[in-house]
């Protein structure tokens, strides 16, 4: 989720500029490297029996692709509205089907208001969509599962990371973790390398209106990374700072950030307090950035 924040604003522009001339409502994509496959399609629509309570035919179309092709890669933006197929990969490639080794896809038969996002940075095994409106990708394609949506304040769209073969294992909230202020402890498998996400809150009705967690540098205890997190406000438009738990020298329970612009983490993520100036460095994504190490410090706590 965190990674979606960095590049989301450029995606729509990229598609708009590059694909404007190809505005189409493809309903049965045929490319040299993707073709419809009835045997895959039968499997796709069997989900209506197993996955849905009513056994409806889901109207999905099966594709077999080769190379790095995907059936949904020709998404377009029409007057700012995403338009494309939503596809569930049916083979568990670690890159969600972008490496060129897979495979089979179950796709919507009609274009939707979601567009495949080739530059979304999602967790291994997942891939991105950018959607308009209230419908999540799962609404168009019941064979897919997506993580918490992240609003794109610049475009008015919502970004998702999705998978047709299940999302990576999540994290567990830890009431016993010692965390500063009102941050909350989470435990995640260190081997998986994942961070706590909004969907890990599950159906907690008391906090169901939180969708995004910002986490400090973890403490390794046994096989688990212990994080201290809180739900921040949305990053203001133009904000370029993203959390980065790999900032060199940033100790456990402190919050690391990488900023690509002139803004600072305490501007983007109040009540974060960054006493030290940022230093030139490299973000976890490998881009030049100013990195910071900061503390969660709401006024009521008087600092940490």
């Amino acid at each position, binding site marked *: 989720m965190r990674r979606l924040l960095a590049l989301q604003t450029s995606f729509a522009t990229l598609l708009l500029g590059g694909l404007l001339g190809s505005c189409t409502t493809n309903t049965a994509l045929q490319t040299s490297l993707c073709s419809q496959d009835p045997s895959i399609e039968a499997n796709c629509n069997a989900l209506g029996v197993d996955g*849905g309570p009513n056994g409806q035919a889901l109207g999905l179309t099966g594709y077999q692709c080769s190379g790095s092709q995907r059936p949904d890669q020709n998404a377009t933006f029409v007057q700012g509205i995403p338009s494309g197929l939503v596809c569930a990969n049916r083979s568990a490639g670690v890159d969600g089907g972008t490496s060129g080794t897979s495979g089979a896809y179950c796709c919507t038969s009609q274009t939707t208001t979601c567009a495949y996002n080739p530059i979304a940075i999602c967790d291994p095994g997942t891939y991105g969509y950018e959607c308009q409106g209230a419908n999540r990708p799962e609404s168009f394609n*019941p064979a897919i599962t997506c993580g918490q949506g992240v609003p794109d304040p610049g475009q008015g769209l919502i970004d998702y990371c999705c998978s047709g073969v299940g999302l990576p294992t999540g994290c567990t909230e830890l009431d016993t973790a010692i965390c500063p202020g009102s941050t909350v402890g989470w435990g995640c498998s260190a081997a998986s390398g994942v961070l706590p996400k909004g969907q890990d809150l599950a159906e907690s*009705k008391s906090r*169901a209106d939180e*969708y995004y967690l910002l986490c400090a540098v973890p403490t390794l205890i046994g096989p688990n990374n212990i994080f201290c997190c809180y739900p921040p406000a949305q990053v203001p438009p133009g904000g370029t700072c993203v959390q980065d738990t790999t900032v060199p020298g940033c100790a456990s329970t402190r919050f690391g950030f990488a900023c690509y612009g002139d803004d600072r983490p305490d501007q983007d993520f109040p009540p974060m307090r960054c006493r030290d100036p940022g230093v030139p460095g490299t973000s976890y994504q490998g881009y030049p950035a100013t990195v910071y190490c900061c503390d969660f410090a*709401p006024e*009521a706590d008087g600092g940490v």
Partner: protein
Amino acid sequence: MSKNHPLHSPPGLARIVWAASVLLCVACSKNDDIASMTYTCGSVDPSAASGAGDPVNDCADLDAMLPPEPTLPADPDPSCILKAQQATSETPPAGWIPDESNGQTTVDTARIGAALKTCKVVKLVTDGANNAFVSGHITLAGATLWVDAGVTLYASRNPALFIKTQNCGVAGVNDSGACNDFITVSGASPAVVGDGIIDGQGGEPLIEPGNPSPPSWWQLSGALQQIDGSIGNPTLINLSTGTTGFVLYRITLHNSPKFHVKITSYPPAGPTVCTTHGDGFIVWGITILTPSRWFNSQGLVMTPHISRNTDGVDPGETSIATCGVMVHNTISTGDDHIALKGGHAVWNVLILHNHFGTGHGMSIGSETYGVYPAPDGTVLSGVTNVRVCDLTIDADSRPVGNGASPGDFNGIRVKSDSSRGGIVDDVVFKNVCMRDVNNAILVSTAYNPLFAGTNYPQFKAITFQNIHDVTCMGLNQPVVTLNGFSPAYPAGPLTLDNLTVDNIGPLAVEAEFSNIILGPGAVNFMPSGLDVTVTNNITDASAPTNCVFPTLPAPQPPAGWLR
């Protein structure tokens, strides 16, 4: 019969007529391409209707299922009757809110708490001019709290008396469990009754030593609105898991810091043993008015829009709620009027003869994912077996305030999303009149599309029968939304039978992933959309339900102000 809410309410015809005359001119559009709005401002006195009786109030089949109206208990032993020790006044600013600077709060908290531990019934009464009690957190276990006429029981403004975590009363912290309730209810047959008032003081400044301008509970909540956060303000009345046979009768509730009443209660014989509706819980003849004044004691304007998250009555919020009735209530607040929360299970509930003013709607959800395996082997799920009949929702009952959104004017709402969805089945909304609501009917599986999860909403048989939404002072065309979640989880059958939404535009009906049945009564719009099937069984040209809206309790504006 309750004191204020007779079964057949008299019409509020006068205010309807003037509003119609004023607003008819607004409808005179010069653009031939845009349909003019029709302002009818209600209808005629149902008593004058030609031979048809009063279809709106006709819930005879369901009335037969109601228990007898509760009664006030006999006076308890004198040691259980507590006399007020201070006075408040309706003349601002002096005496408007109770003085908490002299230790009075501690006295009332202690003596009310002590009485509730030893008395089956505790009655709060006036003593001459003294009419107010002020208290911190109270626990009520299997007892009856009786607030007599003329008495107001105030929740203290001191967060220190509600501390559950370090975040109670702390600004900017998203901790919905930070504070204790004002009144925590538990045990067998607990009750809160009487003709008095319980006032949560949600809009009044908190007591914060050293802070010359402390915020109110509502301001703390509003500060989190931008991040859609949830403040930990006290609930006015909250029932604990395991409560049975709860009764809320005739009481008036004002200005809760957050939710007014959260109900988890079921019959003493067991959650699924519903011999008579009401065995589980009864909410009868109560009034909720929030905010209750135009200004707070500091002169700040109080509106429903700023009283955020002040749901009226929410069965199922904490745990299961079954076999209940909610009858003859009047609710006007800043969030859902009633919300049936299926995070555990809500089953077998009658909601009859209620009148709503401002608020976010007669709602189901957003939690509907609950699954409760009862001891007898029955499994209850989500929200099932619900009947709503004879309901008015009047968005014109008072101003909502600056910054109000369309969601502040909801009618009937069934809401969930994939983070908290489950079964909603066998629900009937019958004989419902609405006025100037933006979302007349909202069946939404995308309460918040950001939320992830695999708890997909499964909205099944939901019926809307004899529904009429009228336009009186509204300038926006009302909207109807009938959305299932996906082809695998469609909504339906959604039955629309004699349903009229005045001034509904051609683009104001949204439907997808749903199976819709029209008729046999007429419906004045045709749903269509992605994966929508419509079965048209309309066989008669039934007239729209005749709507009459009673005048609801509302704060009186200052002299010289226009409403």
